[in-house]
């Protein structure tokens, strides 16, 4: 009986935490979706707001960090973009798409850093 109770409690706990996790991931996904939608229409500030919310809801959502980095890049906030790319790659180091975006960003970022050094 005790064993059954314990099993039930563990299963209930696992279910409730996974449901909560699923909820926040779902909510984060819908924020990312909306962000992509508005970014495609050129509303990058709104996209930033959505993707910032997405990473707040789900701090392990690499794609959201990637999208956020792109938006920061577009707005010229290069330091924030770098941090977001770093986080995305920390979460998914083997994601070639994120890596490709980061490499393109890095080229620009290095150029700006060089300019600052020259000044």
């Amino acid at each position, binding site marked *: 009986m005790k064993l059954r109770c314990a099993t039930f409690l563990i*299963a209930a706990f*696992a*279910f409730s935490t996974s449901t909560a996790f699923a909820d926040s*991931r779902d909510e984060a996904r819908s924020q990312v979706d909306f962000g992509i939608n508005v970014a495609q229409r050129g509303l990058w500030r709104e996209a930033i707001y959505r993707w910032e919310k997405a990473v707040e809801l789900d701090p392990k959502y*690499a794609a959201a960090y990637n999208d956020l980095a792109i938006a920061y*890049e577009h707005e010229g906030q290069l330091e924030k973009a770098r941090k977001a790319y770093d986080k995305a790659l920390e979460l998914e180091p083997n*994601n070639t798409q994120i890596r490709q975006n980061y490499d393109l*960003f890095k080229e620009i970022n290095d*150029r700006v850093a060089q300019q600052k050094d020259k*000044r």
Partner: protein
Amino acid sequence: MTAWLSRRINARLALGGLALVCATTAGCGTALYEVPVETPIPAKLDVSAFQRVLVAGFVAGGAEDIDTNQETVRLLRSQLRSKSELRVIDADVMQLVDVAQEQNKAAVNDTAAADGLSVKTSSENGGVTALPQKIKDEKDLEPYDRLFANTAYWKRIGEEYQNPLIVTGSVLFTPRSSSGLVTRETEVYDGLGRRRVVPQRVYMERKGFMLRPKFVFIDGRTGATIYSETRREEVLYNAQQETPALSSYFELMDRIVPDFLGALSTQKIKGTRVLIK
């Protein structure tokens, strides 16, 4: 029997939980969206104190096929007109080689007068180096750098045009030729008629041009240099190819102009990135 049933229920529950976690963590696959981005790069110089810019002229040398001074001034003025917020002053292009020669002559005379000697024309004259009449290479250009450090002169020019930002400098545009081994991609067909492209080292004679502009930005209010930068670009063609000097000049300037504009105004670098769902 009951124990067996309860074990099965527990196992199902555990499996269900695991499946749920997997479903929520793994998601339903990845969707990619390519979007155009324009990354703004801040200007190298703070030109907020200026409303107008004077592209004065350049000490030019090298190839005589084109008037490098005239072409450079014309190109930079038109680029600044369309891509910067500064108002471009329309003025006659300054012949800075002549200006530098005159200043040098005056300096030689002053030195000679101070020493009580007759005017010398040698290269060593009381520390004033003679300026080469013909500028063929970078070494010939070096003594002309004194002109850009002459704050009194540039301040006077600044006053004449109501204190604009002054753009000047030197441009060397010279023919280049080179011969040696270069890597070319060659088509090769194997026994089955399949095409492959392989890199091959071949000896080639090539000729073209080298462009080395030095841009000097001067504060028209004080005559002092606020920033300068030098670029060097070259283009080489197959020796049999006849490319006009002017088209090579524009080809090379095309590579340099974005950097020049980047000194004065925010530039946007266009590219694409991939958004991930």
